[in-house]
């Protein structure tokens, strides 16, 4: 695989993102608002308590801030693919000397890189100044957090791509993608830590890939997943990434053989 062309695609995506200033400020504003809503929500919950399910307010706020940040990295590769399929642009893409999934992945990682520098970092500063974010519990937790975040971001893109590939079969994946959004928001732990849910729910999410998206990395950071649990959790993440990577490719290869390209 020639990496150069994929890097060029990623860089080009970063440039494209730079071009949309209005959209950038709008999304910065909406995430800032979401941060403050979370802040006041948890303040209210902790009104007469020092902890909820064994979690202190400062830990909960740290979790909420990091989860919100990570939730921004859900990715749009699948939506892009669905759009290409629905509007026939996929025909042009298939004429190019690259693997379409790799191209979308490269563009998505480019987009996420620009999101990180342009949105995540400044928002993190805002959060630290006005809400308060605890430092990581240990150096080991901090480095494991970094690894875990990368895996989570990759997994998010792959899950998104899976939904995109399905539009080869259904043409309109809008319903599916709404469902995907909802399931991920709840089951990834983007709203509240999974430990706040009932036991049966936690058991189910143990066997599903969604916890790897947000809960695992953030819980590693806050120390909810303790030292002994860190590496097994990361291995599970790695397993999900590998599984989705292979599955999406197979499904794509199969779809391209079967499919009718629309239009013309």
């Amino acid at each position: 695989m020639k990496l150069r062309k994929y890097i060029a695609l990623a860089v080009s995506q970063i440039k494209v993102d730079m071009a949309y200033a209005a959209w950038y400020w709008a999304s910065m504003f909406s995430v800032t608002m979401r941060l403050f809503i979370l802040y006041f929500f948890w303040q209210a919950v902790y009104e007469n308590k020092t902890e909820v399910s064994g979690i202190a307010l400062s830990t909960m706020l740290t979790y909420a801030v990091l989860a919100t940040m990570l939730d921004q990295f859900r990715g749009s590769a699948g939506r892009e693919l669905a759009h290409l399929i629905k509007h026939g642009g996929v025909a042009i893409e298939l004429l190019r000397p690259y693997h379409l999934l790799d191209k979308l992945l490269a563009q998505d990682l480019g987009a996420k890189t620009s999101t990180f520098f342009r949105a995540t970092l400044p928002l993190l500063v805002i959060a630290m100044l006005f809400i308060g974010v605890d430092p990581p519990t240990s150096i080991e937790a901090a480095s494991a957090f970094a690894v875990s975040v990368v895996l989570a971001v990759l997994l998010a893109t792959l899950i998104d791509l899976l939904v995109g590939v399905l539009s080869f079969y259904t043409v309109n994946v809008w319903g599916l993608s709404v469902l995907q959004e909802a399931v991920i928001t709840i089951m990834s732990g983007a709203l509240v830590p999974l430990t706040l849910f009932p036991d049966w729910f936690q058991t189910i999410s143990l066997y599903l890939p969604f916890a790897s998206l947000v809960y695992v990395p953030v819980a590693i950071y806050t120390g909810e997943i303790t030292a002994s649990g860190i590496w097994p959790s990361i291995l599970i993440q790695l397993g999900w990434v590998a599984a989705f990577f292979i599955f999406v490719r197979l499904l794509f290869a199969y779809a391209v053989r079967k499919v009718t390209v629309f239009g013309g």
Partner: protein
Amino acid sequence: MSQLAIEVKGLVKQYKIMERDAGLKGAIKALFTRKYRIKEAVKGIDLSIMPGERVGYIGFNGAGKSTTIKMLAGVLRPDAGSVHVYGVDPHEERVKNARQIGAVFGQRTQLFWDIPVRESFDLLREIYEVPRDEFQETVTWFIERLQLDPLLDVPVRQLSLGQKMRCELAAAFLHRPRVVYLDEPTIGLDIDIKETIRAFIREISDAWGTTVILTTHDMQDIEEVCDRVIVLDEGRIIYDDRIETLKQTFNNERTLEITLDEGSTFTLPPAVTGLVMRLETEEETIQLAFNHHEISSGQLIREIVNCNQVKDLSVVVPKMEALIRNLYKTGVSA
């Protein structure tokens, strides 16, 4: 043995079309039971195209042109038959094939919507792994021939149709492909830009020996760019020959256009019955088709003028367009 640029044998493509009854009732019924109808878009095509040939691939809408091109490009998988482009099976070795072909698909852009033209080209250079100095040489040449200079820093989405099509064409040839598919590259463009585009295709193809497959509804494109014509009708090839041969076949066809004095009616002289055919037309004039060999223009005019009160008349030598229309009617087989 010289290698063929494109070799196609017994190519077939079928589409499954979902059928449903009209109206809400039909829509609801379709949720539970699905009926499919098989439509055969391409019904067994054979093609041998030499390197450097410029082929006009024409036919009515729905004749199967785009379907064939998509199979040649590797985007669609044939249901039967084989395709080889310089020895490569386009669908099985899609990426390998992608390196040696270029394409313009009429309405769809292959440039990158959000970034300026120059950066689109740079990105294509990376994607096709074109060496930098070769790329520089090509781009400089294209910029001059297609007058791209003022467009280079404009984002693609802000280009007009004519500007965009010139950039599309440049993009399709940037990596010096061996085969280029052009699906209606001149649709909706004004005469000047059409001329520029035709001249560009000719020049590049001559310089690099690029094989060009061109589909269009504009016969002028075919006449000025191509040296071979393939006519497709309902999924079958009904004509495949040099463009000169096509012209010679119908060389003797003429049309006489007659305008009569007001109030008078047309009488066909008995002497010419059977030699001319009155064409149905929506225009005011009376149009008679005849073969120059069977009756000379002079003789026909003399007969007509003798029997009618003629105000004006003219003899028309048919253009490419008429030749093709004639082909569909008579169905001269290859």
